[in-house]
């Protein structure tokens, strides 16, 4: 692995970690959603600093050119992230639907109460 690609990899991973940290600090990202991002950044930093480990990992994966393994691992994390988002979005949709139903029902109940107590709407 050339030193240039290693520098790029380390800088990239560090930049992502710093950016995530900043997002959490400014409360633009909840901690519970940041865990996976941090794991990804840490793994990528370790692998780009520790050449020997990356080369062994690459050999284990059957990849001849070690930096490619870095991409594969990054892609794997991206995939995990998408799955995670889909799960989160599904949960939010369900909650959103329940809230909408609740609002509709409560409005109609309120209307009924107001009418029976003789108030104008």
């Amino acid at each position: 692995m050339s030193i240039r690609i290693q520098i790029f990899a380390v800088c990239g991973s560090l930049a992502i970690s710093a950016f995530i940290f900043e997002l959490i600090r400014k409360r633009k990202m909840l901690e519970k959603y940041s865990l996976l991002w941090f794991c990804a950044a840490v793994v990528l930093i370790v692998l780009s600093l520790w050449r020997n480990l990356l080369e062994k990992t690459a050999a284990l994966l059957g990849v001849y050119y070690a930096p490619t393994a870095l991409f594969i691992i990054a892609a794997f994390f991206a995939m995990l992230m998408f799955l995670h988002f889909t799960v989160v979005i599904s949960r939010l949709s369900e909650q959103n639907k329940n809230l909408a139903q609740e609002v509709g029902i409560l409005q109609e109940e309120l209307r009924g109460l107001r009418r029976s107590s003789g108030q104008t709407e």
Partner: protein
Amino acid sequence: MDELRKRLVIVPALNEESNIGQVVEDILGSGLGLDVVVIDDGSRDRTAEVARAHGARVIKLPFNLGIGGAVQTGLKFAFRHGYDVAIQIDGDGQHVPSEIPHLLAPLQSREADVAIGSRYLGAHHYRTPFMRRLGMVIFSAVNSMLIGQRITDNTSGFRAFNRRAIGFLCAHYPSDYPEPEAVVILGRNGFRLKESAVKMRQRLAGESSISSLHAAYYMVKVLLAIVVDVFKTYPKAG
């Protein structure tokens, strides 16, 4: 003794101002002691106002949830207000309120928890476009296999539920094209289904929610959902 005295008719409606008044009037005038709640699923016309003017209660959803979310809203309302039976009927005038006794009968005799109004039982002949007919045959075959009971009209939105089924569906009602899926979920969770032959009308006005162009997409999507449903776990129906 007829124990199922509190009866609510749930009418999901989307932009049905031209049909909804008549539908509500027919239900209230049926002499069956029915209450009506119209679920306005984000209509942009005067559906809610017209329904109220004709004497229905109206739940206006803040935005469109789709037919599944709308029907489920009605079921939640029915459950909370202590109804013994909820009857689902389309807001487009396709279903005839005078046929409701056919749906109530199997519930009253305690033969079933859920009654489905079927166009295809009995001697009725409906002209159905080829794709829809194909879909119905497939749903019928797949659902029969999964619940061990033949349902002829899986896409029928003319149904009656007893209180136990209402409670279950409040927590588990499918979303997009819910009718065939609901059959499988109910059947596999120990609810007894029964079909009753009913007459249906051609739509009064407006457009059906399923055009023939969407039929293929509809079939694939629903079949996929049904297959997945088989592997889902549900808390034991109470």
